[in-house]
């Protein structure tokens, strides 16, 4: 037996050297695991109104280069997800969040079409709501219940539920299509720096 006795550090370094090296893709995945949730957390705070638009840039600027790209991508993906046909408040906030990071003609055009779909949905929703309410009021009068003390709770009405879900069935795919386009566009913008 010959040679010098190795220190613990030397042994550890030898072991580490024998470990397989991470590929670029694996490094990226690890970074996404670490920084993706940070972007989603910033998005959550922004959507909840806990973070103002002017504070957003400061928050996001803590992360640079590849990490910054991951955080921004995760933030924007969360904004796209928050666009919801029946949640105009979250949708407006999501648009603000996207607009704070990205501004270009294509985005404006996509936002324009998004607004059109939401407007069409709202108009039809109101029309359907009013006509269902009227039909329910007629049925109620026929039963013998009427007067100013009574207001129909349409949320509990089978008729309204059916009409609303038909409306959602019609409009959700349209909205999902636009959300998909929006996500693709934002991903391209972020990855091109």
């Amino acid at each position, binding site marked *: 037996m010959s040679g010098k006795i190795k220190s613990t550090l030397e042994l550890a370094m030898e072991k580490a050297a024998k470990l397989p090296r991470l590929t670029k893709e694996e490094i990226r995945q690890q970074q996404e695991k670490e920084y993706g949730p940070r972007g989603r957390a910033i998005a959550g705070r922004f959507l909840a109104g806990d973070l103002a638009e002017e504070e957003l840039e400061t928050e996001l600027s803590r992360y640079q280069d590849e990490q910054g790209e991951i955080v921004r991508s995760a933030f924007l993906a969360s904004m796209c997800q928050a666009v919801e046909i029946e949640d105009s408040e979250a949708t407006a906030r999501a648009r603000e969040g996207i607009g704070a990071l990205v501004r270009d003609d294509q985005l404006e055009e996509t936002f324009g079409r998004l607004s059109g779909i939401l407007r069409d949905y709202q108009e039809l929703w109101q029309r359907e709501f009013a006509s269902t309410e009227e039909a329910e009021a007629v049925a109620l009068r026929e039963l013998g219940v009427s*007067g100013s003390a009574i*207001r129909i709770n349409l949320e509990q009405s089978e008729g309204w539920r059916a009409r609303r879900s038909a409306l959602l069935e019609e409009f959700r795919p349209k909205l999902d299509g636009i959300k998909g386009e929006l996500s693709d566009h934002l991903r391209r913008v972020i990855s091109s720096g």
Partner: protein
Amino acid sequence: MRLVGDLFAYVWSGRDNNCNRYVLAGVLKGDRHVVIDPGHVTTPALREEGLQGLRDEMESDGIDPDAIGLVLLTHCHPDHSEAASVIREETGALVAIHEVEAGIYSQLGGKVDLFLGEGNLDLGTESPVQLTVFHSPGHSPGHTTLYWPRERVLIAGDLIFYRSTGRVDLPGGNPEALRDSIARLSRLEIEYVLCGHPYGHSGIIEGGDEVRRNFEFLQTHLLF
């Protein structure tokens, strides 16, 4: 027990807590009835039959308990409202309660078809029973009372009792609101006060003088 016109009173006679139940029989289309505060399905402590007891009493008065078209709830407390869900499920009756109570009532598993607020409520098509609904908070924030001017009947829920008032120590209770509600209702022409519970009394205060004396007693001795 028929009280006046098509109005029947079912005074709770069990040992556990439950409310008095009132029925406007056959006033709706197809001879369907309106039940006001159906009470517990089964009382919580002694497991006494609440709803089945009501059904039996209605049947003995010749009122079909399967033909209920509307349940009016004065407030959401389970001793007044629990059976409403079962009635709704079994008979297809609509359930009405003040919007302020609807949130808690829903948390207790109830479904609300109609919101009940201040105004007129006509029950029936040809010669309807014309009620006035009063928002009368105090015992609970969305408590309502029903007044039938033609017969001078006040269905008081848990606002007032014989020589007593509804408690205000439960969530949403408010002594000032209770006082104001009682003062407001005391100005009505009333021959019958139908109370929500038979506390030491049937809970049916009868006769204009007796009703007035009761209001005076409450305002002199009990109203804070």
